[in-house]
């Protein structure tokens, strides 16, 4: 009875952790966080996965890249694909292109800094760019708040036909007027860092 209680508590903690983690979490890391053993973690997950199956859950916990994560059932792929592709843009919006340009030329940069440059909240477009893999987390700010910092990905370089970020066209190639270039660079410096 006590054992069962503990197990239930353990699996609910595991579930909570996996729900908010955006990459697979290893049994080792779970065991350490929940001060238990890797075996207990694995057993708890196995029996819960069985329970999901018996009750026709739409998801399960799978093991991938040395860790656990929630995944949708492959039988439901058609519904999920239909959902994720509905209302999805087929072209980059001007707002998304602007945001991508800011990230490309001003990386590493935080969401708040991008918002400050654009004057509107950038979370939505950033979400899209991250989802599509063009932009990724590259670290955390050392300052107060330790904001997440973003940069462009290898996929971005690949899609743009660039070998490296050094191959990005320089502003002065496109804008002959030196003061114009300077003004543009000024704008890329956010007015304040949150």
């Amino acid at each position, binding site marked *: 009875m006590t054992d069962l209680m503990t197990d239930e508590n353990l699996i609910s903690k595991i579930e909570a952790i996996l729900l908010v983690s955006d990459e697979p979490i290893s049994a080792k890391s779970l065991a350490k966080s929940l001060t238990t053993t890797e075996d207990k973690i694995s057993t708890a997950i196995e029996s819960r996965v069985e329970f999901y199956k018996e009750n026709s859950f739409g998801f399960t916990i799978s093991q991938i890249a040395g860790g656990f*994560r929630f995944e949708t059932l492959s039988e439901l792929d058609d519904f999920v694909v239909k959902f994720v592709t509905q209302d999805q843009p087929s072209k980059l919006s001007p707002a998304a292109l602007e945001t991508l340009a800011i990230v490309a030329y001003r990386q590493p940069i935080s969401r708040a800094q991008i918002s400050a440059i654009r004057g509107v909240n950038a979370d939505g477009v950033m979400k899209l760019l991250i989802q599509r893999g063009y932009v990724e987390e590259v670290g955390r700010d050392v300052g107060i708040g330790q904001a997440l910092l973003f940069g462009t990905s290898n996929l971005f370089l690949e*899609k743009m036909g660039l070998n490296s970020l050094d191959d990005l066209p320089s502003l002065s190639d496109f804008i002959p007027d030196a003061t114009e270039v300077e003004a543009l660079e000024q704008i890329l410096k956010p007015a304040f860092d949150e």
Partner: protein
Amino acid sequence: MVFDVKTDKFEGPIDVLYKLIVSHDLDLNELSLSLIVDEFVAVVNKMDQFDLERVTEFTLIASILVELKSRRLLPEKESLLGEEDLLLFEERDLLLSRLVDCRTFREVSKLFAKMMEESSSRYGRKVGKNEKFSSALSDLLEDVVPADLIYALMKIKRDRQPKIQHVDLSHVSASPRISIEEAFASITRELNGRQTISFKELVKGYSQPIDIVVFFLATLELYKIGIVELEQFKTFGELKITLNNAPNLSFSQIVASESIDTYDAGS
């Protein structure tokens, strides 16, 4: 003194006034305005940077207090329903409703802070689609080339620029084709033929902005001295000029009979 400026967050003059009145049982008769002013001057002197907004806020509160106190000190009036008193009533009601508003939203904001705090510890799933589903999505960078990024940056710059970058002075250097006197003559001549003319018709033969300005000033001047009536039914709509009492006057006659500001449009 009730006015502890250093610890005060100073969110707005109305707010501070409210605090003064409510939390300190402000009795205007007891209140020494000179003490407040002294304190205010001391704070201003201590400011590292001259903060115009804060100084203005202080001045506003001080002036409201001065007004309230002076009203109380003045002898009572005989009639309670004079026009001036009604105005005072109205003013006071406005101030009261602002104080109540201010207090209300101040209270609400405390609740907002609490709600945000509480919901910041609610963790929703933000992970999104895994690679299996993101590959089902179309490639958004298909038609994008590096130059597009530069154009996007240039667009941000354009959008961020103030709409008017420099004042266009070309109209100043252009010399007007007509003087105000000539415009007067032209307007009165046109109006003698008929009672009404639109401003657009009036300036038909003129394309330089400065000439149109001259005509406009002349029209305003005629309106000011009561020679014409002006009507405009909507913003930026047609301006209709109607002769008032059909005088057959030349400009010099008008100048002689009324005092008219003449504009030296040539300089």
